């Protein structure tokens, strides 16, 4: 497969980054626009999600039905969701329909109808969505963990708050849109069967006139308590914990990814082995990695019955300590590398996977990484370098949130 990377920054600040994949039939794009929950006023929690829904209800002179029909007729699979930092609009379709789909999304970004009549239905949906999240203990505990681990607004859940959703007016939503849907700060990433010169010209034509806006100031506030138990009458106790790690742009990024992998990224990783295979304590236990700009975190999640939850927490914490104390073996590092490299190579079969990765690379690094670059960085890791980093992280503070019938005891804390 002959994959090429291209990029262009337009005068209004819009970034276009692309990977042309001529062997595939499809094309996908990911648009990250800086309209995430972090930029909501504190009293308007949920505005970003409501806005993401609002912009898709009619655009470019089409009403809601005409817009959805146009997307359906082009066979566009698509989704729109607010996250903490960005609002993410993604789409995938056959390569031959990609430019027509892009034109529809340019209208969604720059010419949404923002009809007042849509606001009450959107409010009703947002409230129900929030309640639905609350009914799912596994998702709930992760949202609560992020909120407590990252300083506000970087740990906000884009689903919002009941008060925010109930009180935000159409005028405030319109203002949120005007302030935050802007070309400077937006990344349009495209992957698949597209022609680069034509893509650049089309994007210039569609979005070249999109007017810049000032970047908003964000004030950081300390997050809540790093220990929390949420009492619920559930079958299982949910355990979620996080500790700081390098961000994607940082010099220790690959060491952080290696640690998350060795701890709980695949089936022979430490947590799955010790918690599930050797002790049968859980069905689901894993570790993952999340990055924001300037800070990252490694997090772990497990769900288990009340009478086994204390042991699950104890074993999980002991494994994190052991990683800091003993480091990792060459065989573990090799496994982590093999898994990550395979995933990266297989991602080149997926246009939507690639467009999401390209967009993310650009946000953190201001450029796209190649497979070769990532592979060589992974090859540079040694058990010693990763072990030293584990020792450093092991000493840092942890955020621990549990949800279920009763709280757990955190070893070493009264």
């Amino acid at each position, binding site marked *: *497969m002959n994959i090429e990377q291209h990029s262009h920054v337009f005068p209004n600040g819009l970034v276009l980054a692309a990977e042309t994949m001529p062997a595939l039939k499809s094309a996908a794009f990911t648009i990250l626009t800086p309209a995430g929950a972090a930029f909501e006023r504190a009293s308007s929690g949920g505005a970003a999600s409501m806005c993401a829904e609002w912009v898709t209800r009619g655009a470019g002179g089409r009403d809601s039905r005409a817009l959805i029909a146009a997307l*359906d007729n082009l066979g566009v699979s698509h989704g729109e969701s607010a996250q903490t930092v960005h609002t993410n609009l993604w789409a995938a379709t*056959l390569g031959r329909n990609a430019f027509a789909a892009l034109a529809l999304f340019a209208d969604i970004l720059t010419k949404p109808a923002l009809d007042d009549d849509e606001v009450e239905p959107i409010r009703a949906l947002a409230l*129900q969505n929030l309640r639905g999240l609350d009914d799912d203990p596994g998702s709930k505990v992760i949202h609560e963990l992020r909120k407590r681990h990252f300083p506000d607004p970087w740990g906000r859940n884009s689903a919002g708050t009941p008060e925010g959703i109930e009180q935000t007016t159409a005028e405030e939503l319109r203002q949120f849109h005007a302030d935050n849907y802007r070309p400077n700060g937006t990344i349009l990433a495209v992957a698949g069967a597209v022609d680069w010169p034509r893509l650049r010209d089309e994007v210039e034509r569609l979005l070249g006139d999109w007017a810049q806006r000032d970047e908003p100031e964000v004030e950081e506030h300390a997050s809540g308590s790093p220990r929390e138990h949420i009492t619920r009458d559930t079958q299982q106790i949910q355990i979620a914990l996080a500790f700081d790690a390098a961000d994607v742009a940082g010099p220790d990024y690959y060491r952080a990814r290696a640690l998350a992998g060795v701890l709980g990224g695949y089936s*022979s990783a430490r947590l799955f082995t010790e918690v599930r295979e050797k002790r049968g*304590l859980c069905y689901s236990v894993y570790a993952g990695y999340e990055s924001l700009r300037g800070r990252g975190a490694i997090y772990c999640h497990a769900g288990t*019955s009340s009478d086994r939850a204390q042991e699950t927490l104890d074993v999980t914490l002991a494994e994190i300590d052991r990683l800091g104390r003993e480091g990792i073996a060459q065989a573990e590092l090799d496994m982590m590398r093999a898994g990550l490299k395979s995933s990266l190579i297989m991602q080149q079969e*997926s246009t939507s996977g690639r467009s999401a990765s390209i967009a993310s690379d650009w946000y953190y690094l201001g450029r796209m990484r190649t497979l070769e670059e990532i592979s060589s960085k992974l090859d540079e890791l040694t058990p010693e370098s990763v072990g030293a980093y584990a020792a450093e992280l092991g000493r840092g503070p942890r955020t621990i949130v549990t949800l279920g019938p009763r709280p757990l005891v955190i070893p070493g804390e009264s």
Partner: protein
Amino acid sequence: MTFHQTTLSNGLEVVAELNDEVRSVAAGFFVRAGSRDESDDVSGVSHFLEHMAFKGSASRDALAVNRDFDEVGAKHNAQTSEEDTLYHVTCLPEYLPRSFEVLADILRPSLRGDDFEMEKQVIIEEIHMYMDNPMSVAYEAAKAAHFGPHPLGRSILGSVESIKNMTVEQMRGYYQSRYGAGNIVLAVSGNDDWSRLVDLAERYCGGWPQGVAGRDALVRRGPTSFQAICRADDQQQTVIGVADAPALESDDRHAAQLLATILGDHTGSRLYWTLIDPGHADGVDVSYQDYNNTGVFYTFLSCDPDEAQANLGRIESVFRDAMREGPSEEELAQARNKVLSRTVLRSERPMGRLGSLGFQWLYRREYLSVEDELAAFDRVTTDDLRRVLDAFPLTPWTIVSVGPNVEIKPPF
């Protein structure tokens, strides 16, 4: 893209769709063993057995199984449904021989007693996890309510009690009866060489015992039922509806899928415009599920508990309108565009093709290329949709409601 097929002397069928343009290869063993093949005393054994396969064989323990897949970066997993257990791996072509050897090895598990007792705990945790999820509770109950004594009504996971009471001897007996080579299809999709594949299959599966397991695949048509389950602490009401639909053997299955898309796709469908767009519900969906000799349309609804009754009435009206007038040419064209495009997108990855390849062969002994699948959707006419609606009325339907509102009544 080339198709290949052979049958080993012990009855194991091997099918492959090979393609030099992709980076990976996916392989899967499709075993005709699911909850519909169980009896009460071993309820949940198919799924439990799937877990036990990963506990290892005579030559490997559980840690070695995980290690040997992970060393080559292979993505492995398994899933159990009402009718099949699928074990699959996706990896780079150079690692297929090593990954395949492990995958074949775990289909001959040791089923050791101490592993069995340890894994019981994990299964019970999995059951508890699903009991905390309103959607899973509703789905299990809806299948039981709709199918009643029909084997498709059985729980895939079983109950805490059935798992606790199961013995390893019972599992060994079930394994002997369902894991004969004649009851398994090996499917491979992606970048590989056919003669190498046949060699691998011969080397690692050629010694498997023969054996074809029967299945009393009864047709299920008929009465519907209603149930309201109280979950007082839930904030949303979750409802699952079930109505009969064409079976996987039927040539109407493509029409059934397009009909489900027209009625209840998550965007742009009749139910979307009736329920989601005005904000009456935050989730509604109709999906078509084909089974061996049976099929159903599942309708899913999530909404404010106080709106649930009105929403059931709205869904009932959409169903009645569809039965009276049938979908228009324009609706059919739109649904077809969506389904065609999704099929192409999914099919770009070997893992996205594996399921279609294996299941088509397991139940229909038929190979459908991506182009064949697209053509089958292209051929569907509004008359075909009409015929499906006449043969499989959407209402009355089985309804199971889960949440704080227990006053809900059937809307018909």
